[in-house]
């Protein structure tokens, strides 16, 4: 009985509707491209290209669940990317070292955000706008915007395996870690608790500071990791490569069904959000949509699919209420 209601709940959830949207879209694209879009090499290319922003989106998910919003993540990512690239150019190093550097740098900057958010009690949007500008400003001042390239051979000579490992492998690891933390640890429950009702969480003895430190630290670490992937793919480290794409990443998370007021959201939803954005962008080229129409088509597809999703979720809720009344 219990199992059955859990199943029923899933079929009525937002994630299930989103999954349907993704499946329908995949079928439509496959039909429109004569099957090209579902060939394994295309799927791998697509996941590889979107893994960087996917990893960053997973970090954003944590912040939004905790009731905040972070838009400084691309600035944080730019710092991590630059430090990692500088280390490689000057000291050589290997993959383990650059992962540690980019995760460490990202987490460090994230912790600064956390302390500010926790102590100043102003909307997190304002704080992260400020930190974003400060970080970019400092970066611009110290680097004068020079792009870094010409990395050592172990980083610049990509093989199919290394490409897959660094991009899709890292994304999978990030998703699994995030899923484990949110579903299986006390900290995960606390993140939801703080996002759902911060006062109630405080009264239950949750240390809001430790949750903030964890959430923003994690988001920073994810941003740093995403920056590493992007650097590996494009073989360049630059400030402006990441700047300005904040909305793309937030779109992935928000399409994934997270509640912007906090307390709601899942890793599975975010994964679907990432896949949806990737499918749309990749599909536009495979179908041959003219770039003059691209934005219009993407916007229309998102709007239409979410009208249907929203309507279905509402209908399901209404039915639930009716059933409840009948009982």
């Amino acid at each position, binding site marked *: 009985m219990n199992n059955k209601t859990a199943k029923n709940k899933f079929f009525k959830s937002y994630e299930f509707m989103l999954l349907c949207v993704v499946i329908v879209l995949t079928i439509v694209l496959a039909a429109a491209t004569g099957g090209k879009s579902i060939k394994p090499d295309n799927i791998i290319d697509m996941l590889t290209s979107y893994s960087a922003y996917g990893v960053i989106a997973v970090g954003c998910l944590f912040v939004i669940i905790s009731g905040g919003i972070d838009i400084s993540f691309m600035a944080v990512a730019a710092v991590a990317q630059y430090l990692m690239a500088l280390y490689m150019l000057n000291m050589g190093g290997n993959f383990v070292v650059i992962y540690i550097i980019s995760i460490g740098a990202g987490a460090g900057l994230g912790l600064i955000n956390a302390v500010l958010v926790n102590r100043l009690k102003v909307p997190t949007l304002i704080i992260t706008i400020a930190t974003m500008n400060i970080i970019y400003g400092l970066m611009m001042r110290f680097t004068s915007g020079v792009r870094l390239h010409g990395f050592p051979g172990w980083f610049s000579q990509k093989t199919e395996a290394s490409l897959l490992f660094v991009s899709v492998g890292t994304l999978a690891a990030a998703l699994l870690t995030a899923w484990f933390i949110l579903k299986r640890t006390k900290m995960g429950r606390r993140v939801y608790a703080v996002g759902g009702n911060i006062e109630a969480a405080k009264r239950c003895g949750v240390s809001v500071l430790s949750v903030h430190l964890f959430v923003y630290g994690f988001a920073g670490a994810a941003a740093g990791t995403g920056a590493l992937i992007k650097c590996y793919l494009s073989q360049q480290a630059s400030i402006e490569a990441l700047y300005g794409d904040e909305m793309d990443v937030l779109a992935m998370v928000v399409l994934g069904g997270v509640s912007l007021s906090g307390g709601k959201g899942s890793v599975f939803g975010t994964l679907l959000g990432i896949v949806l954005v990737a499918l749309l962008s990749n599909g536009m080229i*495979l179908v041959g949509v003219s770039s003059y129409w691209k934005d219009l088509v993407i916007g229309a597809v998102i709007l239409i699919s979410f009208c249907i999703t929203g309507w279905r979720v509402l209908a399901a809720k209404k039915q639930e209420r009716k059933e409840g009344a009948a009982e």
Partner: protein
Amino acid sequence: MKKVLSLLITLIMVLSLAACSNSSGGDGGEEKSSEPAESEESKGSDDQYEIAVVVKVVGIDYFSVFEDGVKKFAEDHNVNAYVTGPSTADAAEQVNIIEDLINSGVDAICVVPNDATVLESVLQSAQDKGIVVVTTESPDQVGADYDVEMIINDAFAELVAEDAAKSCGGSGEYALFVGSLTVPLHNAWADHVEEYLADKYPDMKLCTDRIACGEDSALARETTLDLLKTYSDLNCFICFGSQGPIGAAEALTEQNRIGEVTVVGNIIPSEGSTYLESGAITTGYLWNPADSGYASCYIAQHLLDGKEIDESFSIEDMGDISLEDKTLWIDNPITITADNWEEFGF
């Protein structure tokens, strides 16, 4: 404690107001003498012209080299010339910056527009205040006294198209990358490349409408991979925007298809060097951005001095100049190959 703080804040506000009114008072005085001859007199030898150069985006190598040219001009001619610009290639940001410059009372504004139409009104209001406006990479800009181009567009597009066609054997499909669908220069070249190839090499077909990924190497890489899967006859990428060839070349390197596919376009020599040497980028084309920066300031100062620009106008060490309405064309492109990329120094 609170009282002290509020006192301090008030003090700061009053002081900053006073500072503002001071500087704007100075501006007012200058505006009255907006006649070029008079302003020349009012500027003593120690009172330099202030020439602000607004670039598309600060922080990329191209505009760092551009800035070198501006700095060189400032040193050579003893003027206060400096570079500013938005941190993303955003026309609205440029409008804000130019408005601030107008209010701060500069003598001349040089601009590399992100969007010609968006900037029209703000440039006109600068002219109304007696500020000299010079643009570059935006021919026939409304609101500019003069526009200067470091290449002759049609000749440049033909140079790129001809080399591309030769390299890929004059048949197959080609893709066109531009920085954005609204960058005037990239789109003018793209238009001419399409016309030229349709006319001279009818066997070469454009695979899909031009794509806006020329300023983002990761996006260009992804787009290249997707295009190669979609169009089996695709054998040539013509990329305008300095990151297009890099991304395309990176994709070809990953796919082990170097040599099968031609990649030509704008590159920063040092950035494209590894790909030029591996053969992933066939050839690169550009002009020297330092020359653009230098020439913009040169023209601005020429106009500030109250001199006319006519057919006899020339700039030292630069190629032939032809004047077409309010646009100055200088034929000065550079071709970048595996052998010569080191010579350019950027």
